[in-house]
């Protein structure tokens, strides 16, 4: 078999070829590629000549896109069985349903040829869910029937950092990539600032503090997360967060003005305009914050990149909403797969060298309590 003329390849192309060649089948070809790389690297080092460069001579950065391999036809079947069994069992099966859903989405999300794995046990989730439902019923009952005493839920404010910390820990420790689990190291005291102290100040700052709080929360999430024992690091400045929120606020303000004009003609047109404005604002915040956080995150010398566009995300949200409402919810799996596909396609990892030297950390057991409570109160914390 003819080998391509590797001598004419650039260094980057050679590394790419090495990555994709099947060494078992083409040992000779692989050897040629290796030789060419060595030659090219020598040539490059000679022209630069620093010792630092020589140490890094064989470390190459490769871009790896996240891929989502699931499809809605397949997920629809999983989803409908989940919903059916959850209804029949009056919600008890929902914990098993959640694990199955998560396993489908994690197991179809690939990075560098390996998928993610969701490890949580349904019983742990069920326990958390039961506690969460009891709390929710208590909360709603007081809110509906004893509104004068709703303030007692202020006591929940200092409990919030605890729930957040537990929830992140549960989620990350139950996520595995290759044979290494993620972990979360944040403690209650770390979360107190971003989730209790700063929010109390919000009304006094006319909510201008909000983007800064979001930054603090993202820092709290990324900087205390680790893959195995290796910590992630987030570099981000509050200015970027402010510009995302100001632009989104501007869009919403504009849609409110348009809505005002339209509603003088037809009220429903005005409502549609403001709803679209709200959806657009949400999409542009999601995309903007997502980009800042992912672009600012590093793991050792590996970087991440996200190119999400608010406009595209808005289009997805609008279509999802229309589809779900008009099919009485049956389009939910289609919508979920679309979002997962889009998110993955926007995200890249720049792998410096390889990902082979991470070591799993021994863990003690933990409950799902925080995560489930958080879900019920709709405080999900997404990356």
């Amino acid at each position, binding site marked *: 078999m003819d080998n391509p003329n590797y001598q004419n390849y650039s260094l980057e192309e050679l590394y790419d070829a090495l990555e994709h060649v099947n060494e078992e089948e083409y040992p000779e070809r692989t050897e040629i590629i290796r030789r060419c790389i060595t030659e090219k690297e020598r040539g490059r080092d000679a022209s630069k000549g620093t010792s630092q460069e020589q140490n890094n001579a064989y470390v190459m950065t490769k871009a790896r896109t996240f891929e989502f*391999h*699931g499809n809605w036809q397949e997920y*629809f*079947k*999983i989803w*409908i*069985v989940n*919903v*059916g069994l959850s*209804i029949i069992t009056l919600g008890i099966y*929902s914990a098993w*349903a*959640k694990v*199955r*859903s*998560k*396993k*489908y989405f994690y*197991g179809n999300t690939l990075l560098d*040829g*390996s*998928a993610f*794995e969701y490890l949580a046990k349904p019983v742990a989730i069920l326990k958390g869910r039961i506690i969460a439902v009891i709390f*929710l*019923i208590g909360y*709603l*009952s007081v809110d*509906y*029937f*004893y*509104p*004068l*005493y709703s303030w007692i839920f202020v006591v929940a404010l200092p409990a919030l950092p605890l729930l957040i910390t537990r929830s992140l820990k549960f989620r990350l420790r139950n996520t595995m*990539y*290759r*044979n*290494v689990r993620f972990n979360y190291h944040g403690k209650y005291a770390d979360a107190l600032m971003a989730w209790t102290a700063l929010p109390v100040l919000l009304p006094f700052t006319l909510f201008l503090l909000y983007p800064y709080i979001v930054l603090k929360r993202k820092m709290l999430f990324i900087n205390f997360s680790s893959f195995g024992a290796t910590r992630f690091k987030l570099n981000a400045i509050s200015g970027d967060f402010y510009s995302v929120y100001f632009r989104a606020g501007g869009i919403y303000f504009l849609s409110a003005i348009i809505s005002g004009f339209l509603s003088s003609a037809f*009220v429903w047109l005005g*409502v549609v305009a403001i709803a679209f404005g709200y*959806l657009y604002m949400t999409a542009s915040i999601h995309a903007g914050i997502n980009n800042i956080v992912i672009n600012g995150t590093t793991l050792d010398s590996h970087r991440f990149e996200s190119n999400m566009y608010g406009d595209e995300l808005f289009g997805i*949200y609008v279509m*999802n*909403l229309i589809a*779900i*409402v008009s099919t*009485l*919810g*049956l389009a*939910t799996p289609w*919508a*979920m797969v679309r*979002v*997962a596909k889009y998110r993955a396609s926007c995200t890249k990892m720049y792998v410096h060298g390889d*990902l082979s030297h*991470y*070591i799993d950390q021994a863990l003690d057991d933990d409950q799902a309590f925080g995560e489930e409570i958080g*879900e019920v109160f*709709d405080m*999900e914390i*997404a990356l």
Partner: protein
Amino acid sequence: MIQINGNYFVKGTSQKQQSSFFFYPSGDIFIDIDNAQRPIGSTIDNISPRVGSSARYIRFANGAKIESFDNDAIDQIASRFSSNPGHEILYLLESKMKLIIIMSILVIGIVVSGITHGIPFLANKAAVAIPKSINNSLGRGTLELLDKLYFETSNLKQEQRELLLNEFKNMSEELQVEQTLILHFRNGSSMGANAFSLPSGDIIVTDQLVELADNNQQIISVLAHEIGHVVERHSLRQVLQSMSIVVLVSIMSGDVGTASSLTASLPTLLIQANYSRSFETEADQFAIEYLRKKNIPEKAFSTMLLKLENSHSSDDTLSFLSSHPMTKQRIKNTESN
């Protein structure tokens, strides 16, 4: 012998080794290293359940793991290895096309009939079962809260108040209401002409409503509507139904992703508004029946509804979001019955 291709990882490491794996009927497992079959040297601890065509994981007693997408081959291995029968049943359910179609129709059927009939029916049963003492203590504090936020003390003349209180007392006796009903007068200020009831049996009428009415019959029709809410425990039922809807929608909307929260909250809102409207219709019905029994013309109620609508600027185009049915419809109901 079953062969699968995938990635091999030693315990607790991210070092990936792409290879082929050979599972022999004897239970021996080999890995291909440099074109030679080497024994894995451990036994299978567990095999992750099949979820569609997503990645599968075979874990070994020594902590090593194989990652592979060769789902069919792994199914064969799993059937030989003592696997979890529950997982197989789930995948079987998910792969039967007929079953999926039946399931979809069933789910839609259960959801639609549950929303329109099941949940209201169960909420009604539950509301009746909840002890009276609990129901009567509900909403304690709501009046104080409304007083703080909206109301001012009533400016109605003493005679007028006593007249209405007397009428009200007669009404609750005639209707044989077991609960103690108390009528309150308040200046509604910014809220304008309005009337409320609380589950505790407190009924609040604003000065503006009393002034808006041409005669006492019209006020009585409104009071009858509010008593209807109390007698039929609408507040409690609304809460129970709202909670059930939240649970149902969260089951439907799934557990993945944040984008779903927006698409889940809109349907919830619409259904809750729908429930609220049907309670209003029920209370209207209650009022009309009372008026008939007392030989008060039903016109009293429909005129009052029209007057109330005119006193508030409102728009019919958003009827699906409203907590009350359209006035036109409500008036039509008084005539058709």
